[in-house]
């Protein structure tokens, strides 16, 4: 008797779950599909809540290229020194592998353009030239660090940002902009906030995705997941590894989320 009641309860629970599942599917098919296409998620240690990182929208040119069966070529443009000191790969180098994991069966290639110590206005021309020559589907543009360090004029920063974005888009590529690194020490010396908020504002007012590295790192610091105050070489190496690995993962995850699920869904279906 009691057993049967239990069974009954179990069945009812199953039904409810099924209805709920169906409802979820019905309500947001996009989300479910996107979740499938980006199967390998990020390490829990790297993950940040949606309030900080919530990639929305679609990368139309990347999606179109993938839908046409073309490989995904990514160009990372940044203002960091090119070869990382400790012999640990940085996020640009990790991006390729992370993207491949998320786009099984697709070809992914990344190229890096280092413009060390350059502010945004000086990055636009080389960035445009590189896009012209290499014809990537996606550009990841990290900028703002030098501008903030030298407290360069915010308006010319914004103008440069907008013209760089326009040049890239005109050449048929999608673009993601990435802001600065965060640590309390550097944030105390350098006023990043106006530049960060300009970038996030720009991405709000245009369709360009702003990868909020500053806020992501800040969350890690606040959660104690990474400790930049530790001065030992081992700790420095560890935090270097952690930050670059996680940035690589989160960036790849964001890009994968913004690929139109249909453009890869069709291909995956065909290859099966």
């Amino acid at each position, binding site marked *: 008797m009691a057993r049967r009641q239990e069974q009954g309860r179990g069945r009812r629970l199953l039904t409810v779950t099924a209805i709920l599942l169906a409802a979820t599917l019905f309500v947001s098919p996009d989300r479910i599909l996107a979740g499938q296409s980006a199967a390998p998620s990020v390490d829990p240690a790297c993950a940040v809540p949606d309030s900080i990182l919530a990639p929305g929208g679609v990368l139309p040119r990347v999606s179109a290229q993938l839908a046409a069966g073309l490989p995904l070529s990514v160009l990372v443009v*940044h*203002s*960091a*020194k090119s070869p*990382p*000191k*400790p012999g640990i790969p*940085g996020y640009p180098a990790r991006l390729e592998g992370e993207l491949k994991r998320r786009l099984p069966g697709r070809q992914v290639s990344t190229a890096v353009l280092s413009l060390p*110590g350059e*502010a945004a206005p000086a990055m636009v021309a080389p960035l445009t030239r590189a896009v012209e020559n290499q014809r990537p589907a996606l550009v990841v543009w990290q900028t703002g*660090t030098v501008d903030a*360090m*030298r*407290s*360069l*004029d*915010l*308006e010319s920063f*914004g103008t440069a940002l907008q013209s760089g974005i326009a040049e890239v888009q005109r050449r048929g590529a999608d673009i993601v902009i990435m802001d*600065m*690194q965060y*640590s*309390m*020490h*550097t*944030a*105390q*010396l*350098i*006023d990043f906030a*106006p530049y960060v*908020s*300009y970038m996030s*504002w720009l991405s*709000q*007012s245009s369709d360009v995705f702003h990868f909020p590295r500053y806020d992501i790192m800040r969350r890690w610091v*606040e959660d104690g997941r990474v400790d*930049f*105050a530790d*001065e030992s070489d081992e700790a*420095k*190496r560890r*935090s*270097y590894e952690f*930050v*670059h690995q996680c940035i690589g993962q989160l960036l790849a995850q964001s890009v994968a989320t913004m690929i139109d699920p249909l453009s890869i869904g069709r291909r995956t279906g065909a290859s099966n």
Partner: protein
Amino acid sequence: MKNAISADSGNETAARDLRLDFFRGLALWFIFVNHIPANQISWATPRNFGLSDATEIFVFISGYTAALVYGRTLDRQGMPMAAAQVLHRSWTLYATYIILFFAYTAQIAYTARAFDSPLFAEEMGIAGYFQDPVTALTQAILLKFRPANLDVLPLYIVLLLAFALVLPALRRRPLGMLAGSAALYLAARQWGWNLPTYPDGGVWYFNPFTWQFLFVMGASLQFQPDLRTTLTRFRRPVAVAAGAVLLASLFLTLSWKFAPLHALIPVWLTEILYPISKTDLDPLRLLHFFALAYLVLWLVPAGTSWLRGPLAAPVLACGRQSLHVFCLGVLLSFAGQTVLVHVSGSLSAQFLVTVLGIATMVLMARFLNWYQSAERARRHRVAATTKMGT
């Protein structure tokens, strides 16, 4: 003029509008809180609720009080004395700036050492600040290498130096000077005039060519009591308009945080509104400041009783000693940040740092107020006895 002379007979503080000290003191508290990056309590300061912030309040009131103090000297003792006083004040500010710069340098040296981390070195090259100490120091002396958080001080020094030159003209023809100042403001915005900083390519965070407008406006309003009364008289339509401006800028400020709000603003409007430059004192910031000032002056009329109450007293004390409190605030915000980074960054620690910092500022202000009045009394006594002696 007669009033000014009669005020001389001792009770200067009684004639002084307490609101000046109160709001300048409040601005100093806000500046202190805003200068601790790790302090989330800075969320409660005006910059998150409207376009203008504590800097506007500080600069405007500084212009107003500079006109009050040095205008009085000009009337009584003539131009040379007034100019000497202004220059003396600028010198004090400059010396203070250099002292603060050294505190800041120590901070950078420490950070550069801590940040010999490959992670930050590859993107920021923080050590670069120290690659050429000779240049950095000479540039600092020329006010060109300006550490963050110290931006207001160089602005204040330059404004005061220029003030010494224009004071007589400002006293005689306040409106003409205001028009000239407005023209300079517009020209600087139009043609992008600003002073350079080191490392090359930077500009002053507070552009003195634009921010002078607010300073001169404060000063010229001080010289024109009639105009002041007319401007601040309560009129319902103006109050409604001011309220609308405040609400609109609250909405704008919130839209920087919450994307859905931003989506409600039509694109053509954002193209007109942005960028809202703090460096060049955007007209919208000015508009917001005037709206705020109008409503606050109406809500807090000159003789408001609570300004004499115990709650306002600590703020008033800080406002009276604005230079020292500002500088102490900069040092304390360094210290506060260090505590939050190295000891604890919890919300209660942030609260504690804020409260202790403000308490220290109030204590020092009280001490200085006591010292100055005691010193004045002593000098009066000495003067009286020497007079009797001769």
